[in-house]
């Protein structure tokens, strides 16, 4: 009748996605390239200082290469990219990749921990809300979700800092030396991600629980836990994978605000200061890395989704 | 005398492909179908799912124009008509679909749904209210219903309204695609009686499509059986019922559950 089930998506499927990933990253970085140079703000001026004279600035520009026409800069950048040469920071005079590489572990740790934390909160809560709609847990969950979504992330972060680091003194205020330094930032991030995810889990679960196959499973005498988790939840999590991937991608991009509030030397902070200073190579490098990571995460999510949803595999 | 509706070698194929695929899958939904329908008669079209019944219906009224072949209504080939001509031709033929719940805009009152149809039929604005009431009465509903929303009506009543709407432009030919399939048995009888009554009173011609062979046997003057897009049987009803030529027809009728009442 139709081809036998494949446990994993076909190679062609994966290759097509990879191709699209490449195109996406390319378009993004080209756009950023142009935008950076079009925006007001001269890196050479920023480095040299406000009272440096025009000749120094001009010399600096020549050194940095920002005085050449846009197209020439673009082409030489492209050429460098093909050789995987990300260039050096205008400010630190160190290779961009090196700078990024230093920061990545922290951001990754933060993101993974926050994402897992978000899931740990959102999934059980969402399921509990869906199973007993309009019950106490449901109201609590909705309140939590609304509150956490309404509160700006940094406000929540500062609140946590105030309460647990300053007043109670349980956690350190800034820096990233010990695991204890990570608790509050992870909590802040996880809660705001969870707020969004919990509503998705709830509505997705409600939808699945209302479907006929759940009724049929119950009618055949399967125990409630099997019906709820093995049947309904498993299918309800599919859209959560897609949205979760996007959330995770954002996290990986460097939670700029959180890193700023907790003074964590992550990718976000690096990017932010590079943008202020018009440190083109760092910004470009950072954007590429972020875009690649984001696309990569989505790619993996797509694979996961098609592994979980047999219908997508076949078509 | 030329038949009212004439279909010659109608085919409808669908191609699906994308920019990067070399093989283009082709579906022959309808293959080389020819038949005619005399004025004021009912042609019944039966077939299983996937046989192409609905595709044929849509191709016939040029909702989804045929890939090849010709459709003539009252002698006029539809393919030759331009957009304007087709719109005018459409007033003479209408199509009624299976699901009455989806056919009516839930946010429009009945009088507005009918009003739209009347406007499309170029009925002058001043006459529309009266004509709408007339149409409802034609299908056995009261003019009071004009002010209600579709949600207030049962499935059977909605189907009556859909039929009323189809009659707005005084068509001569109706294509009925499973008009009673989603209705209860006793309501089906009401709607079928209504349709036959309207046919008599207004001199209509029908193409009556259904998967229900008993229904098709009851209602048709001529019968066609579709199998995978091909017309494997076609002829006057009595002939198809008593001496079908195709093995498939025999199989279909054999498989149909029948009520053997002591009639």
């Amino acid at each position: 009748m139709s081809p036998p089930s494949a446990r994993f998506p076909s190679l062609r499927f994966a290759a097509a996605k990879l191709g699209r990933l490449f195109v996406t990253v390319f378009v993004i970085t080209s756009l950023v390239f142009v935008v950076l140079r079009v925006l007001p703000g001269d890196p050479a001026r920023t480095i040299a200082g406000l009272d440096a004279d025009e000749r120094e600035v001009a010399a600096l520009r020549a050194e940095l290469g920002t005085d050449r026409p846009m197209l020439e800069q673009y082409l030489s950048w492209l050429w460098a990219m093909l050789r995987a040469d990300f260039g050096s920071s205008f400010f630190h005079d160190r290779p961009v990749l090196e700078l990024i590489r230093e920061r990545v572990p922290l951001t990754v740790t933060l993101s993974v921990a926050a994402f897992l934390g978000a899931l740990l909160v959102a999934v059980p809560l969402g399921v509990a809300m869906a199973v007993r709609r309009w019950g106490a847990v449901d109201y609590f969950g909705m309140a939590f979700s609304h509150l956490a979504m309404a509160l700006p992330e940094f406000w929540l972060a500062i609140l946590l800092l105030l309460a647990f680091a300053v007043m109670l003194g349980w956690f350190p205020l800034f820096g990233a030396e010990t695991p204890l330094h990570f608790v509050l930032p992870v909590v802040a991030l996880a809660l705001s991600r969870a707020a969004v995810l919990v509503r998705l889990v709830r509505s997705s679960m409600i939808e699945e629980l209302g479907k006929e196959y759940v009724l049929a499973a119950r009618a055949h005498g399967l125990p409630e836990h099997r019906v709820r988790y093995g049947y309904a939840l498993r299918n309800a999590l599919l859209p959560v994978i897609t949205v979760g991937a996007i959330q995770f991608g954002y996290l990986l991009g460097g939670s700029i605000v959180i890193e700023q509030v907790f003074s964590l030397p992550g990718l976000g902070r690096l990017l932010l200061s590079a943008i202020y200073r018009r440190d083109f190579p760092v910004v470009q490098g950072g954007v590429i890395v972020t875009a690649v990571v984001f696309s990569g995460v989505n790619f993996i999510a797509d694979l996961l989704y098609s592994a979980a949803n047999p219908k997508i595999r076949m078509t | 005398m030329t038949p009212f509706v004439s279909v010659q070698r109608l085919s409808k194929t669908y191609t699906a492909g994308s920019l990067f695929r070399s093989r283009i899958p082709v579906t022959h939904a309808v293959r080389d179908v020819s038949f005619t329908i005399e004025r004021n008669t009912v042609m019944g079209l039966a077939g299983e799912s996937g046989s192409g019944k609905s595709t044929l219906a849509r191709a016939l009224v040029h909702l989804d124009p045929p890939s090849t072949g010709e459709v003539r209504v009252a002698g006029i080939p539809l393919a030759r008509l331009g957009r304007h001509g087709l719109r005018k031709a459409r007033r003479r033929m209408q199509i009624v679909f299976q699901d009455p719940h989806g056919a009516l805009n839930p946010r429009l009152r009945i009088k507005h749904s009918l009003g739209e149809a009347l406007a499309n039929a170029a009925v002058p604005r001043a006459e529309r209210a009266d004509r709408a009431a007339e149409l409802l009465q034609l299908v056995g509903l009261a003019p009071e219903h004009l002010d209600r929303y579709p949600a207030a009506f049962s499935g059977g009543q909605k189907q009556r309204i859909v039929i009323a709407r189809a009659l707005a432009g005084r068509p001569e030919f109706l294509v009925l695609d499973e008009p009673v399939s989603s209705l209860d048995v006793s309501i089906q009888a009401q709607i079928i009686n209504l349709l036959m009554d309207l046919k008599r009173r207004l001199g209509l011609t029908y193409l009556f499509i259904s998967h229900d062979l008993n229904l098709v046997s009851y209602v048709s003057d001529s019968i066609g059986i579709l199998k995978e897009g091909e017309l494997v049987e076609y002829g006057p009803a009595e002939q198809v019922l008593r001496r079908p030529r195709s093995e498939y027809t025999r199989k279909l009728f054999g498989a149909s559950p029948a009520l053997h009442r002591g009639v």
Partner: protein
Amino acid sequence: MGRHKIHGRDGETVLQLQDVQVSFSSDGRSARALRGIDLELREREVHGLVGESGAGKSVLLHTLLHLNRGSANVETSGRVIYKGQDLLTLFEPNMRRIRGAEISIVFQEPAKHLNPGLTIGGHIEDLLRYHRAATRRTAGARTAELLELVELPRRVLRQYAFELSGGMQQRAMIAIAIACNPQVLLADEPTTALDVTVQRQILELLLRLRAELGLSVLFVSHDLGVVHEIADRVSVLYAGRVVEEAPNTVAFSEPLHPYTELLLRSVPSAAVRGRALKVIPGTVPDASAVPPGCAFHPRCPIAGELCAEQMPQLEPACDEHRVACFYPGQLSALESKEGAL
């Protein structure tokens, strides 16, 4: 398709419903979906339950399995006797042991009733695992046996519902339902969404399973023709009550209840070509607004004063034939008189 022997004629009763009533309440209004069902399913019998939408067919099946227990605004009364026990009084864990294992069910639209993320084999294994404590390995033999019974190829085990045709999906559903060798099979319009030829195959399959496994089948449908093809005895449902119960041939050739009579005459077929179909005026009453007395009386051509005041009980009229009407058989008598004039 001929019926050779009337099963269940004097057979033992396997499942019995006594005055089963179910009402749903919302916003202060109550809808009486079942208003006192009396029904008997006998051993090895295929019992057809005929009813239009709104008659309460699905509610009846759900109540049999006590599936609506959890809902807050449902009130159930009456008795459902199976093996000496009233199923409606069983605690949930005990009821769960019966569902799927002793009383099983197949549904309409099998595609919707199968878990889209689980293979057919997975479905069967689930039943075997939870009812028979089977493991992957021990389930294998039984699974193969089941596939053979329903005439499905082995590869179906690894396939998902959407990969199968309608007919195969229904066979798979049947395989799942009989996995634990139940005594009773409830069939909720199992062939309604299927093509005519496939429908025929499924009906034949059900009859074969009845013969080979000794199943008792409660076959619910709005399709009179299908019920006529497969049932031994027939019960006619109207507005939440059984209004007539008779052996198949009798029910279809000599119905006593006006509703049954009119319903049969409203079905189109080649035999009645050229004649207008008999129409029952009005519509099936909504469960929240059931007329007093006999629910059918507003639409009944022979309704009398009594019919509006008292509700007729299902009473024996002749051998194996029960009817709930104050004037049983009068409609056809009246019409043949009129016909003769």
